[in-house]
């Protein structure tokens, strides 16, 4: 079976999703502080990596990498509520791009499997 990444159109679809998602998180007071880096292009590149991974696209990351990548954010207070907000924003982004609700549910569920890694527990 093809991955959700392939179903929604691969790299071009992810490119379209990055701007929408980034705009949403920057406008979301619950989590914007985590994403408000000085170099927006570098931040966008990391979010592209995030979305690719969330959709099951080709990526090099392991759960251990997710632990390392977010450790400095956990020190700054990253918690379950932030995690939920990110998943919510990704869901809203995909909805805007016309991804069916059932598919979004599957994605959210699979991201849940990374919760303990991202939150370093």
């Amino acid at each position, binding site marked *: 079976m093809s991955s959700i990444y392939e179903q929604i159109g691969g790299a071009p679809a992810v490119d379209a999703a*990055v*701007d929408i998602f*980034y705009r949403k998180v*920057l*406008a979301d007071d619950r989590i914007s502080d985590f994403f*408000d880096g000085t*170099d*927006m*292009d*570098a931040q966008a590149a990391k979010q592209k990596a995030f979305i690719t991974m969330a959709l099951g696209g080709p990526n090099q990351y392991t759960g251990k990498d997710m632990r390392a990548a977010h450790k400095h954010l956990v020190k700054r207070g990253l918690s379950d509520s932030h995690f939920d907000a990110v998943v919510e924003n990704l869901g809203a982004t995909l909805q805007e791009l016309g991804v069916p609700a059932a598919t979004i549910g599957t994605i959210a569920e699979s991201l849940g499997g990374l919760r303990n890694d991202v939150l370093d527990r």
Partner: protein
Amino acid sequence: MARLTYRGGSFEAEDGESVLECLERAGCAPPSSCRSGQCQSCLMKATSGSLPPAAQQGLKDAWRAQGLFLACACRPTEDLEVADADGGALEVAATITGREVLSDEVVRIRLATGSPFEYRAGQFVSVIRPSDRLTRPYSLASLPSEPQLELHVRRVPGGRMSAWLCDEAPIGEPVQLRGPAGECFYLAGEEQPLVLAGTSTGLAPLVGIVRDALDRGHRGPIALYHGSVRASGLYLADELDTLATHPNVRVVRSVLEGPTPDGVVQEGLDALVLGSGHDLKAARAWLCGAPELVRLLKKKLFLAGMPLKAIASDPFVVAPAGA
């Protein structure tokens, strides 16, 4: 921990330390300026070992392939052998041929190169002072079709390169140039709306880009914003007025405080740009000058619907005090 080899010496880079910081501790660092991966002053070459991707961000492909990298952005995770970037092959000799006072703060410097120097209007070059290899980036206001390169240099109090260029170096003085670099140049569909905004000498690349766009027959609307805290930071009024006679071009000059000369409004650049009804989903933007303003505007334009890829910016990051 990674081991650095340089000029026959061997140095331990501490965790998270950049090559620049490590070599500074050892007292043998290359020249540097912005220390944040923007200006390419601290270019070095890796002769063995592998570079983290961030170390080559923003470098042209040909340079990447040669193992060139930025010492300030390179935090090595494994052993690395590094050398000075090969001056001869990467640099072009130039001489200072002209100096013209544009305002109390800004001087126009003209340079002639000894051999052809390819660039796009709006890119920046590294200017290297031969006597001590002091290196600083300056943006190009000229077009490649013109015989000389043109820089707008703002006199910074206590500034080493800017004081030398503006007041000390005699006409005929040699300098070395490296580059060009940067993504700030005309690249757009002929009908696209163009929005250009800059503070102080951030105007230099923007006038280059506007003139280049017009030369290439750009037909869409062009809005050029020049802002400064006070009127003393504005310059080039006559040339901007001439540009504004072109039917496609609108020029807006603004200050934040103090007296407003004729034709200058008192409002923040961000409010002006965002409040002017530009079709941001269709436009391209170029933002240059004070880093805080460039970053603020970039974020606001993006949040207002502009694709990130449609925004080119050069924050003029200066060397930190004491460096």
